[in-house]
């Protein structure tokens, strides 16, 4: 277990450094860098004198490699800089947003796993049946939905027309506010999980050891509970891990739609306000979270699959 963790971490650090470098380069070298871009889109007009002062203050007049070295050094100590806009440390800015984001992402994934895995299982146990057809039509539709449009429709129906749930905002952080954004965000991974669970279970059901289990005189229910479930889980866990990436991408849009005070909406707002340190910080945060999740997934593998301990 420890070995896997250490190896994973050893893999993550170079990736993280590369991401930091990439983000830095993107925003420093390419045209339309933040300071020069300010005011161009008419949304933020800044006094040239203020701009000059900011350039100095931010050290933007230093040569590129000096700025990069400084940036890396600061980032490594957990200092993501000062927000151009609010003049607060970016870490503090992001800090307030992390918990709501985590809540939303995990709520969405919980919904996706509960519904998706259940549908996939039911479909696989009765291939070709009505349940199978309906869940797979459901799944391919879920994959084709634009998540924010789906969220908009949910908002219209359940919040504005039926008045069952609040239409947007974080409220007091209670359950009712998270339902609609979580469903809107979870529908894509739900659909994918339904499909992959079905494929995984069908695969396992055709495995030799399932035939052995049947030859022991086990009821089909026990075959599934004792032998199929765990094996299918290995595949499902992979998909869950990979889905966190696209989930966090989509979270940006869903957070914006439901005015959810998460890292994603902070990212979008910061982009519009050309708040470079905040944008970089948000992207780093999202990548870090994604890598952390995948490390957890790797540990989950070790817990589920005894072969991994030896073969890696």
């Amino acid at each position, binding site marked *: 277990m420890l070995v896997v963790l250490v190896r994973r971490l050893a893999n993550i650090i*170079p*990736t993280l450094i*590369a*991401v930091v470098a*990439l*983000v830095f380069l*993107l*925003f420093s070298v*390419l*045209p*339309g*860098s933040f300071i020069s*871009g300010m005011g*161009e*889109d008419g949304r933020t007009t800044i006094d040239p004198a203020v701009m000059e002062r900011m350039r100095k203050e931010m050290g933007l007049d230093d040569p590129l490699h000096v700025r990069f070295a400084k940036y890396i050094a600061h980032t490594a100590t957990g200092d993501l800089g000062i927000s151009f806009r609010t003049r607060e440390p970016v870490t503090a800015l992001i800090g307030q947003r992390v918990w709501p984001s985590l809540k939303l992402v995990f709520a969405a994934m919980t919904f996706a796993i509960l519904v998706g895995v259940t549908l996939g299982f039911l479909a696989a146990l009765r291939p070709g049946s009505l349940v199978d057809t309906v869940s797979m039509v459901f799944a*391919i*539709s879920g*994959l*084709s*939905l*634009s*998540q*924010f*449009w*789906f969220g*908009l*429709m949910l*908002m*219209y129906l359940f919040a*504005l027309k039926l008045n069952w749930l609040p239409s947007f905002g974080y409220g007091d952080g209670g359950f009712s506010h998270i339902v609609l954004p979580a469903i809107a965000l979870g529908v894509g991974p739900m659909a*994918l999980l339904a499909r*992959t669970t079905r*494929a995984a279970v069908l695969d396992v059901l055709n495995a030799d050891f399932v035939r052995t289990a049947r030859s022991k005189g086990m009821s089909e229910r026990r075959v599934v509970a004792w032998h199929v479930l765990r094996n299918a889980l290995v595949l499902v866990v*992979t*998909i869950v891990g*990979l889905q966190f*990436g*696209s989930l*966090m*991408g*989509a979270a*940006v*849009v869903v957070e*914006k*739609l439901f005015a959810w005070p998460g890292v994603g909406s902070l*990212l*979008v707002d910061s*982009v*519009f306000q050309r708040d470079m340190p905040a*944008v970089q910080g948000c*992207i780093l945060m*999202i*990548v870090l979270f*994604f*890598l952390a999740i995948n490390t957890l997934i790797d540990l989950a593998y070790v817990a589920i699959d005894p072969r991994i301990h030896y073969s890696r």
Partner: protein
Amino acid sequence: MKLPRLKVKGGTSLWIGGGLVTLAIVVAIAAPLIARTDPVMDANLMNAEIPPGLDFPFGTDAQGRDIYSRIVYGARISLTVGVVSQVLNSLIGVTLGLTAGYWGGWWDDVVTGLTNLMLAIPSLIFALAIMAILGPGLLSLLVALGLTSWSYSCRIARAQVLSLKSQGYVQAARILGYGDLRIMFTQVLPNILGPLIVIATLGMGGAILSEAALSFLGLGIRPPFPSWGSMLSEARDQITTAPWLSVFPGLAIFFTVLGLNLLGDGLRDIFDPQSTTRRA
């Protein structure tokens, strides 16, 4: 046990998907013929926010523009984004994958590192960052979406080269005096064309969804140009008074992407029975 060959399955999704995609393409090409009004210019405040009915099948927006006509023209943008971004992704992915697998060494390490990097950043976040730098507009959208999801085609191309190398095809071709480029084009590409088409088809659906998301955030196509995403972006504020403004562009996205997904599934059953391209 030798079983007689069973018929290839997956016919229905291929036909439904193909039908939907063909419909979208026909609409996009014939937009000037089937649109009833100009999508941008024909604003008429006298006709503002009319619900769907006989005069305006999908209703009108706050400026009195015909939603049906705007959706018809929007198909052009969505399909352009889908096709161009996937062509870009395939080109990048195949070039990197082929060369990395073929030459190996440090270049292979670089490409593998890049691929891992791409996988570590959610592609929509990456695209968003690029849009933030380049500014809104169709061209930057094509660049942003065309640069951010080439990792699948890269991995498939690289794996194919490595497998052919281990089987000796590549060495044989080299001994026969074929040049590197010729070997890649004659030996490797034909083998991965099927999976590549599947990936590109499924990727087009993803690109159309990303276009809609970015436009919705205000970073993609800006109003008044009728992209489905930008229409939704405008429609959001009027969801209570004019819900049809949101419903129809959303349905247009849904059916187009559904068509591409079904088509991709159907093509996979034909080209790639072992499913190297199963989305994960």
